[in-house]
């Protein structure tokens, strides 16, 4: 759990310590080279990856990406993107565990193809079965408090609510819900999806979120490498601000310069 003024302020997920609070997606970059540079610039805690059928060319694209992951030397967070049923998600997770040799899984269970909204009714059961199968589950979810609580109840030691639907870049469309989640849940929270600007990331970190997961906002920037750096700095700034403890906003003005000793006081 996050605490103010922690002198050991590192991301702790399922008992593992990470030295970054930014998780980075690997899709939609202009080239593998740009992706690699963005990784080097942001030094993310984890890189998300997926599994798909090999297409033409004997799996060259897959092999190239595999080599890039090994070169990057960053922990991999496989996802279950595109899965619509619990069994699809579980089977995909098991396949990912064998290929990537990791128990981490970003659980995506899509309930609506148009909005890519998670299937909130199936998500707890899927998470429950994966956790019982030994996975460290990071579920992609909406910002619904009760749903997130149910995910915690089945053993999720972190949850990943969206800020907005995947790829929209809108930033938090429901600040009240995200802030309520932070107040109510005593586990690491990672905002996944919907962030478009570094200021969006900084904002949720200021609210006490533990990390952010980004992809499109970096990959589709005109200069993805520079944007990766901007997000890295924003995440760090937001975290520092949260740990520093912000002042309370107020309606009445308070002069910052002392009034006592003001020259020419009422002489005009």
């Amino acid at each position: 759990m996050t605490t103010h003024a922690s002198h050991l302020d590192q991301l702790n997920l399922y008992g593992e310590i990470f030295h970054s609070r930014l998780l980075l997606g690997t899709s939609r970059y202009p080239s593998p080279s740009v992706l690699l540079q963005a990784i080097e610039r942001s030094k993310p805690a984890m890189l998300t990856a997926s599994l798909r059928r090999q297409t033409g060319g004997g799996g060259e694209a897959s092999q190239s990406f595999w080599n890039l992951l090994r070169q990057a030397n960053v922990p991999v967070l496989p996802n279950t993107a595109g899965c619509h049923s619990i069994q699809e998600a579980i089977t995909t997770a098991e396949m990912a565990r064998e290929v990537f040799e990791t128990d981490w899984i970003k659980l995506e269970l899509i309930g609506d193809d148009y909005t890519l909204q998670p299937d909130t009714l199936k998500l707890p059961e899927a998470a429950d079965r994966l956790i019982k199968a030994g996975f460290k589950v990071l579920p992609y979810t909406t910002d619904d408090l009760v749903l997130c609580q149910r995910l915690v109840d089945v053993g999720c030691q972190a949850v990943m609510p969206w800020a907005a639907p995947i790829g929209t870049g809108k930033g938090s469309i429901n600040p009240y819900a995200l802030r309520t989640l932070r107040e109510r849940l005593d586990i690491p929270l990672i905002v996944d999806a919907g962030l478009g600007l570094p200021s969006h990331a900084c904002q949720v970190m200021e609210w006490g979120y533990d990390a952010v997961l980004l992809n499109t906002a970096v990959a589709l920037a005109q200069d993805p490498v520079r944007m990766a750096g901007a997000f890295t700095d924003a995440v760090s700034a937001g975290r520092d601000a949260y740990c520093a403890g912000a002042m309370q906003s107020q309606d009445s003005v308070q002069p910052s310069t002392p009034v006592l000793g003001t020259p020419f006081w009422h002489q005009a």
Partner: protein
Amino acid sequence: MSDCPLQILINQMPYTLPQGASLADAVAVAGVQPPFAAAVNLQFVPRVQYDQYTLANHDKIELISPITGG
């Protein structure tokens, strides 16, 4: 009847294999490059079981490999 070849799907493409063929045989026919993982009829099959896993008619095999993801 038992000598009839197997009609199977690998990544939704139709293949014909001899009766008694294993998942390892299907993987060889598909020609996928490692790394990959396999599932038959939506059930994961660990790599160490490919040789022993005997296929049945109309089995649906998925062979999937790493790719970028968000």
